[in-house]
């Protein structure tokens, strides 16, 4: 449903908040979107309020090591003696932040490159899209591993590495949108009115190109969360920050006698990525209803 976009075009600029609200309500009317929003909001709140909810601090020794889940320790204790429930809550902060920041940076980088390539066309398009293809040649995990191995694995470098690996996905979608939208009448009208290129790109085309890109950003945030968890699992994330992947890395040595060290942090990653994917599905559904139209074959 393009309700949000059409409202923006017809009415004055300050109504963008209203169109955002309209879009949000449309999203909440889709089953996938509603579930996604609820999951992500709940996870964000729980991680944010971890200091108030968690019974212990993330590095505070709570009890004996490797205690199974009980009323005292909901998720048991880890190999060091931390309360796993507390560590999982605190770990959510880093995991969610990496997904959010990496997807945001990838959106800015990929969006800019895709917009320039799609609007300017010609040699700029050829060069920029070949660069995007170049970065898509290698599997995302290999790009991130290579950058982290060579340059280090601090929190921000990890976010940068993930963003560098996933920006071509955003660039391709924005590029495709710009190529189509550039031919539309409202762009010709803006050009005829003598508006600057940056104005046309940012104020005229971009708002109309955004809907499918937002769905991609949600998907990419899920991908970034998975990649970051993978790095933690391989023992290559910032060791000073608790993360779900890092607990799974330690849990690998205790699969025989402490299943809870793997099951709970893994489930947390899975639920986060599921929430983001559902959010993306919901967004796709409202922006492109055909994608979910279940044409059925009647017997």
């Amino acid at each position, binding site marked *: 449903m393009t309700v949000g976009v059409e409202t923006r075009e017809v009415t004055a600029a300050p109504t963008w908040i209203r169109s955002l609200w309209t879009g949000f309500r449309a999203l909440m009317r889709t089953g996938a979107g509603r579930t996604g929003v609820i999951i992500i909001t709940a996870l964000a709140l729980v991680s944010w309020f971890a200091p108030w909810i968690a019974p212990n601090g993330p590095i505070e020794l709570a009890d004996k090591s490797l205690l199974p889940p009980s009323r005292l320790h909901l998720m048991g204790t880890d190999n060091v003696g931390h309360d796993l429930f507390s560590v999982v809550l605190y770990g959510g902060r880093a995991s969610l932040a990496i997904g959010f920041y990496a997807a945001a940076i990838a959106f800015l980088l990929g969006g800019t490159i895709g917009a320039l390539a799609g609007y300017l066309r010609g040699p700029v398009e050829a060069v920029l899209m070949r660069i995007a293809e170049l970065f898509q040649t290698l599997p995302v995990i290999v790009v991130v591993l*290579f950058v982290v191995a060579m340059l280090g694995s601090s929190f921000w470098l990890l976010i940068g590495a993930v963003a560098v690996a996933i920006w071509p996905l955003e660039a391709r979608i924005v590029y495709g949108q710009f190529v189509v939208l550039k031919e539309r009448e409202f762009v010709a009208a803006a050009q005829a009115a003598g508006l600057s290129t940056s104005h046309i790109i940012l104020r005229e085309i971009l708002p109309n190109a955004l809907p499918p890109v937002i769905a991609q950003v949600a998907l990419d945030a899920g991908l970034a969360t998975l990649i970051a968890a993978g790095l933690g699992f391989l023992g290559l994330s910032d060791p000073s920050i608790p993360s779900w992947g890092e607990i799974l890395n330690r849990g690998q040595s205790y699969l025989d006698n402490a299943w809870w060290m793997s099951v709970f942090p893994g489930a947390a990653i899975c639920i986060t990525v599921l929430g983001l994917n559902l959010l993306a599905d919901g967004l796709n559904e409202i922006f492109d209803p055909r994608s979910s139209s279940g044409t059925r074959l009647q017997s």
Partner: protein
Amino acid sequence: MARFIIARLGHAIPLLIGVIVVIFCVLQMVPGDPVQAIIGQFPVPPAYRASIEERFHLNDPLYIRLFQYFVNLAQGDLGYSFRAQRPVLDLIVERAPRTLLLAASGYAVGIVVGIMIGVQSAVTNHRSVDRFWNALVLVGYAMPTFWIGQLLVIVFAMNLGWLPTQGMAPLIDRSTGFAWVLDRMRYLALPMTTYAIYEATRVARLIRTSVIGTLGQGYIVTARQKGLSRREIIQGHVIRNSILPVVTAMGYSFGTAMGGAVLIESVFSWPGVGSLLIESIRLRDNQTIVGVVLFVAVCVILMNLIVDILYSWLDPRIRLAR
């Protein structure tokens, strides 16, 4: 056809050159001593330092260094692993077939299972069946591969004791013939299943969308009006027309399997290319890291080229359209 192959090569070769340039640039960004950046954190005797400086032209301007980097690679010189005391190319050649075995078997099972789930989910008349498969695929799609691996180990290796937890073969192996194959298959079962679950969820999602798209086509309506049975329509029209785009997509992504299995190999200590990459990163064996990354890039580019050529051969419209 020859013109098409040349055109695709003209696309693939610059891509490979681009990847090498990017890798070279990242190597230039490594902080600290450039000799250590090339070989990793190993003690370097002065004589070897001089030979490295000479071989990579480290005291020359950037463009000469880049040129020399290409010359070394063109001669098949991927460097020397200090950790293993062997040329990097040897290490990769030794491990590549193991990754190929894992990826190919996982791919094959995953594609078949994924197609079955996706088609069933799209054509069923029962909304609950579609919902069940959809929910299962959504959850599977969101599960990290290494976590799937850990769960399989907990259930099938630790609790039930049916299968080994890691490695590719027992430490002491005296079996021969069929017993040898069976033994290897027991070790392959869990990593392969992990890979297959990962692939199946992706294929199922793709094929479901593809089948739903096909169901809306005019020729399905025509087939229905012709009085064909439901089974005939699904087998003769729907599956055939829906599978091609999915198999193409899977063909392209197979190239990435050589590097994409890093996490699965790591859970099961499967001694493939991915494990080599992780071991090298842990031990800061930079020449091996770069060698593996280059090898994966070559695999991806080569695989895409093969898929392109195969499809243009199978379907001349692709060739003519370009």
